[in-house]
């Protein structure tokens, strides 16, 4: 369930005017920006952008980019974009890093629905004049490359049907492939990147029933082995995305310092989807509400914005 609190029929024109007012003059009224944008869903935000463009002949996003700064600006920028466009930006940022963020690419390609992944691929082409898969291919190598390209290119069957016999046989294939020293990467990549999500969950369940342990535990091995780590991420995202996101949030906050990129990414991308359940998982696991942890670890407008998206009442 979403954590976003948004009214049913806001006026895009009034919102655009409010934002304009917040940005005019010497300073910026960040609170006003948060109170408008932090309470609008994707469709409403799109209307606001259109209204703003029509009223002021200016791109709202560019205006916000110039008015805001730091983590707050990054968060608002990502929030205001269309979901598909946002995913494209996140993917591109992950790919272009000196050391690409494989886990972000895996997270996006494995937790989005098949249609969302297609929308992402289209948006990516429009923005970057390359296909997503060619950029991933150009910036990675070896088995990781094969896995990532396969995952971003997938257009999985979206149905509920499961073939139990196949789930069993592919659970065995995965088991053999993992325990084998030679590790048959091809088969693992094939199964993880082509099967439907329902089929994969059945396969993972068969694995657990046969082996007495989950496939993710089995993959725990070497954290130095980049491919194994990637596989584990993929399996976790495919099998139980909410649990995965809880862990990303937990890791981003715990310890010294905060991984703002990860924190922003999860909150912004899930606020309209399943952040409520993720919050509940977090609370159960850490005996503390997520809002409290976020408040401890962040400050200022950035904190206020995140808390708003987390469903804090004004």
């Amino acid at each position, binding site marked *: 369930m979403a954590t976003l609190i948004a009214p049913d029929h806001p006026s895009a024109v009034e919102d655009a005017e409010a934002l304009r007012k917040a940005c005019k003059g010497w300073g910026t009224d960040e609170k006003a920006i948060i109170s408008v944008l932090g309470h609008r869903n994707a469709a409403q935000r799109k209307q606001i952008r259109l209204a703003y463009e029509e009223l002021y002949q200016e791109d709202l996003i560019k205006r916000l980019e110039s008015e805001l700064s730091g983590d707050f600006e990054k968060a608002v920028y990502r929030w205001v974009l269309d979901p598909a466009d946002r995913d494209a930006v996140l993917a591109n940022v992950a790919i272009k890093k000196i050391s690409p963020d494989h886990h972000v690419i895996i997270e996006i390609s494995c937790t989005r629905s098949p249609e969302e992944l297609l929308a992402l691929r289209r948006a990516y*082409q429009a923005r970057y*004049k390359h*296909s997503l*898969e060619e950029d991933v291919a150009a910036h990675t190598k070896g088995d990781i*490359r*094969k896995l990532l390209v*396969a995952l971003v290119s997938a*257009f999985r069957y979206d149905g509920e049907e499961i073939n139990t016999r196949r789930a069993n046989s592919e659970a065995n294939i995965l088991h053999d492939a993992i325990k084998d020293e030679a590790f048959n990467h091809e088969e693992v990549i*094939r199964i993880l990147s082509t099967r*439907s999500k329902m089929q994969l969950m059945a396969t993972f369940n068969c694995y657990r029933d046969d082996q007495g342990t989950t496939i993710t535990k089995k993959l725990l091995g070497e954290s130095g082995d980049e491919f194994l780590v990637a596989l584990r991420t993929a399996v976790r995202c495919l099998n139980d995305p909410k649990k995965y996101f809880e862990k990303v949030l937990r890791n981003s906050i715990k310890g010294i310092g905060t991984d703002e990129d990860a924190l922003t990414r999860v909150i912004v991308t899930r606020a309209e989807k399943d952040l409520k359940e993720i919050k509940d998982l977090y609370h159960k696991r850490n005996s503390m509400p997520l809002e409290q942890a976020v408040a401890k670890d962040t400050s200022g407008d950035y904190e206020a914005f995140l808390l708003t998206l987390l469903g804090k009442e004004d």
Partner: protein
Amino acid sequence: MADLEALTKAFSGIGVDENSLISILANSNHEHKKSLRKGCSKFFIEDDNGFERLHQSTVKNLKLEFKRFRDAVVLSLLHPWERDARLIEKALKQGPRHYSVIVEIACTRSSDELLGARKAYHSLFDHSIEEDLASRIKGSERKLLVALVSAYRYEGPKVDEDVAKSEAEILSSAIKSADKRKPIEDEDAIMILSTRSKPHLQAVYEHYSKICGKTITEDLEAEGILKDTVECLCTPATYFTRVLEAALSVDADEESKRALTRVIVTQKEFMVKEGNVLNKIQGILTGSYKDFVLGLVAGGKN
């Protein structure tokens, strides 16, 4: 003898000219027909019991002629997405000798047409194309074919010449190392061919020729599916011309003839341009199949 020629043609399986068949038979007496049969040794053999027996394969051919007409009608009626999904499914079922059809569809359709075929495949078969290809193809072509159907290529004109040049070199070295590793299994070659845009690949093709003195397709002569891939992506007109000529040649097998229907139905724009092949079709095909085919091409001009 004109009658013999007409009869041979009628039994060759590329269109049956009902009218001329009728006129020959209606005007032949017993002796004439016997001499026709004896002269038509390709289709009639001397049976031990003292008569000229029709070859079993000719019976099949006649059946196929009408089947071909029916196939052409059905193929052109289907929504292109369903059509391509069904062609891929059939090719997969039929086995490795038919995989070039999968290459043809994956590489000659636009990005959105291929996407449409993938969607249609979900609806028709409750699986994704890539999962069926990946689980059923066991040979060395698997990786390439799965990658090709999964592509959603950028369709803009922008090309980075430096990248194209270096990728031409990568392909060249993959082909040269054929004795160590099959080019069709070379990961870099697969990545290039399955992720890059078509304009980019055409630039790669040009650079390759400059670097190696031969075209990629010439160097891939022995490589079947891989050659088809490059041809379909870089020089589709060459590919389709080759398929059509094989289909229209005298010793064309059934598979090649079926390709004729497929190409004509799916490549109307190409057919309109290909005056040469069109003339051949005029000369070789007969009957209702020919009329239908010419009608399709004429429609393609619109």
